[in-house]
């Protein structure tokens, strides 16, 4: 890919990320009754070994709602939050004041995750006219630095496209990342879908 095409591709992907996360944040906003703020999307095309540097809290424990993605594009999506944010989000939605994630809270977070991942991917798939499926999300807790490793098991090649968008809900101390990780074997499908859209 020449540099100009690469820049255009990144810009287009940023826009698609914006649309997906916009839809997901609207869903989160409806669910919580609060405004959800989004940062500008970050796109990195890099090797799997180097993506830890783009993760927001590599040295902290995080809770993630994780789902593999496949069909026209394949990879994985995760909504990752620091532990306190996950507890706060669950409390906000279920109107509780728990200090830990109990079974019900895990179910609540999984439902939220399902909704966010579905909204994000649906918007992206609809816009690009691609078929994208995702599996039932799983709730995981891990070190932030191990997120790439978790997601990598669903990716075939060592070069990846990382699309990350930070979100936060002001006044609630809830913040996190929507992260979509795709193998670069998806580049052809994405580029041709974007080209079709721009025609």
């Amino acid at each position, binding site marked *: 890919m020449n540099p100009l095409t690469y820049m255009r591709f990144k810009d287009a992907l940023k826009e698609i990320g914006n649309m997906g996360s916009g839809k997901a944040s609207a869903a989160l906003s409806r669910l919580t009754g609060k405004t959800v703020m989004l940062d500008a999307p970050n796109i990195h095309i890099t090797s799997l070994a180097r993506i830890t540097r783009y993760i927001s809290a590599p040295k*902290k*424990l995080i809770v993630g709602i994780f789902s*593999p993605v496949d069909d026209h594009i394949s990879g994985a999506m995760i909504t990752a939050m620091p532990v306190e944010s996950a507890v706060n989000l669950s409390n906000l939605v279920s109107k509780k004041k728990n200090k*830990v994630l109990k079974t019900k809270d895990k179910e609540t977070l999984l439902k939220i995750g399902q909704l966010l991942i579905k909204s994000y991917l649906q918007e992206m798939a609809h816009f690009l006219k691609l078929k994208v499926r995702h599996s039932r999300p799983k709730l995981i807790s891990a*070190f932030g630095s*191990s997120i790439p490793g*978790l997601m990598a098991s669903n990716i075939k090649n060592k070069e990846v496209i990382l699309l990350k968008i930070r979100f936060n809900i002001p006044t609630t101390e809830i913040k996190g990342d929507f992260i979509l990780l795709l193998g670069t074997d998806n580049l052809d499908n994405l580029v041709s879908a974007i080209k079709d859209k721009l025609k």
Partner: protein
Amino acid sequence: MSQISLVVIPNKDYMNKVIRISRQYAAAYSSICYVNMNRTLDSLTTKLQYANIDLQKFMFVDTITRPTNPHFVELPNSIYLDDASSLTHLSAAINKTLSQGAKALIFDSISTLFIYNEIRHVSVFAQNLIGSLRKSGKSAIFTMIEDETKQDVLTGLSRYFDKVIQLKPTPNLAAIPVFFIISYLAAILALYFFDIHWNFYPGGQLFPPEKHVFEDRSIYLWGGAIGAFIGTIFLKII
């Protein structure tokens, strides 16, 4: 004799310290049960192998690989759980591994349990596990992640352990000479610009500069050294 310790590890150095603990245990014991709750087993075993630690000595109880990778290849003598939240399942898996001949335990980490369980439940879990380790004369290290550790939790748990060790982050001394050189060069450059700045005014000659502020050139030596010292401290802080 069984020695059961709780080690509080700074987040920054967590993985390095855990690898160091694993190396010490691998040198001391023929078989170790490793409870892995914070990264995929694949990633952990790669790091252990990279550190030349004999993997054959380890029996893993893993809570993270199964939910994230449906196609994972099971390691022999390892137990894979669906998640880290069930203390009952975790306890059963650890006891099974210990009964299969593990001589020691590395529990990485107890902080993860606090995501899903109340302090009192984790305390009971730790108390029972430590009780059974003592009965069978096995040694163990339980790790905690410093930033995720509240003082009251640490105080509550510490009574079950023989020793509580709070590790300090390893200072990155290798960076200091680099910071010093960068700061020294920056200080010299700043001094030079100040030294010749009169030549930037109309009528001044820049190449070569004809007017100098400093008559004594030794300022480059001691001024540079002071600048390097201040710059190194500044860079180290940020």
